[in-house]
């Protein structure tokens, strides 16, 4: 029976995706002596280190996501409406850097910043530029896919009915590109909150974002606090993915899978 072919992968998923989450859950709700406690979560909301890391994460991620959106939307829009012939070649130009190892890409940016004397300026600005540099394709791809699928007749209809360019954009094009915008935001925001490679290399380790904090706790073998923060991130991810219907659609696939 063909359906039995999914057994190995199902077992794999249970062992290495589901079980680890439950183990993390266990650590999040226990202390170093394995006693049940809520202290780890209390720590998140009271400890100044955690709070400042959360603030740094959210602010960096918000700004980076917004800039990504502001750059990626026009890019995707122009690409989607350029002729079929050029479309593929142009898209490839924007996506190709994604194939280069991302630590090496960030290192390239670091060396470039060193060259133009930007490296020792603001760790925040450098980190944000790095995040935008790194995650821009994740925003372009889902937007491009959505805009490409958009029914152009509706835009024509809007013009025919007397709407101006601005009205057409706000009332027709923008609502229709919402799925792309939403999946682009999810693809950029979460990594921007947690990918500490960017803040370590470009922010010269002067910024601690949540991902870095989890790593710090892990290195100090304080697994419980790290697990609690991770559980919170996991919960945010679940809620946002559920709200945006990401467990059903192929937004993530469009963003990452669009590579090949």
């Amino acid at each position, binding site marked *: 029976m063909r359906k039995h072919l999914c057994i190995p992968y199902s077992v794999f998923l249970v062992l290495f995706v589901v079980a*680890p989450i439950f183990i993390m859950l266990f650590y999040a709700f226990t202390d170093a002596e394995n006693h049940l406690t809520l202290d780890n979560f209390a720590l998140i909301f009271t400890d100044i280190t955690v709070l400042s890391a959360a603030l740094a994460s959210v602010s960096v991620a918000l700004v980076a996501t917004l800039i990504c959106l502001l750059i990626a939307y026009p890019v995707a829009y122009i690409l989607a409406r350029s002729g079929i012939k050029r479309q593929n070649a142009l898209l490839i130009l924007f996506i190709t850097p994604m194939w280069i190892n991302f630590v090496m890409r960030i290192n390239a940016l670091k060396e470039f910043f060193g060259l133009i004397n930007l490296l020792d300026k603001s760790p925040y600005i450098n980190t944000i530029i790095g995040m935008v540099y790194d995650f821009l394709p994740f925003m372009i791809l889902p937007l491009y896919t959505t805009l490409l699928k958009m029914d152009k007749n509706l835009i024509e209809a809007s013009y025919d009915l007397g709407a101006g360019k601005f009205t057409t954009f706000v009332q027709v094009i923008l609502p229709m590109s919402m799925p792309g915008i939403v999946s682009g935001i999810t693809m950029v925001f979460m990594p921007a909150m947690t990918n500490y490679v960017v803040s370590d290399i470009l922010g010269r380790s002067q910024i601690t974002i949540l991902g870095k904090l989890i790593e710090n706790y892990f290195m100090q073998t304080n697994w419980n606090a790290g697990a609690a923060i991770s559980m919170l991130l996991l919960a945010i991810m679940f809620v946002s993915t559920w709200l945006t219907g990401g467990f059903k659609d192929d937004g993530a696939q469009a963003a990452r899978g669009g590579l090949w």
Partner: protein
Amino acid sequence: MVKKICKYAFLALVLLFIYIPIFVLVFFSFTDTKVLGDWGGFSFGLYRKLFTNSHLMTIIGNTVLLAVGAGLISTVLGTLGAIGIFYSKKRTKAALGFLNNIPVVNAEIVTALSLALLFAMLSGLSIGLSKTYFSLVVAHVVITAPFVILSVTPKLKQMDKNIYEAALDLGASPLRAMMTIIIPEILPGILSGFMLSVTLSLDDYIVTAFTKPNGFDTISTYVYNAVKVPVNSQVNELRALSTIIFLIIIVVAVLMNIRKKEAVK
């Protein structure tokens, strides 16, 4: 006309932002100086340094081996999984699809920590001992196999189901029908799933850092440790390595583009 120029000027500006750091690195890979920006005359010195740096060469070999190995495992597991899920009942389908999406949408650090905790618990020992080649490969399969599923499933949906039934009616065994009908139909999905797995594995830092054996390095972990504060050593042969990787990727991208164009024809 002005509008058109504005459009392309904008695209050019974004491309400039994306490519300038890479081109600067490529340019300065052809001179053997310590600090980027100093030009000490044209030289292949950094390339010579790169290829004679046996430590770095081992790391490159390890990275490729890990990516291809984990990619192959993910491709087999994921392809079988995709076929199995596709023919499962609605509820199983929904449940497995949901689980499959967890590593895709999850923050990498969360996946990394959860796996590290699992292996620590399994070995019942300190973190240092739980990091093995096994944990590393499993972790890479966790982050790559879901993408094989996501690549193969659309091809299964596009497939004409009647051909498989016809093969069975004509006396083919289920295994034979599978190998001669289903697999060739979904092959493009399998291949792109494999390529995607390899790319994602090559690209990964966080999950690797949390599960790799001590002393083992991939390009990502090596570069991260070499350039971050407070170490910040100038490993200038990395410029040569970046250039080579960039060249390989340009060639692959061009080839893919040609293949796609032929497929369209």
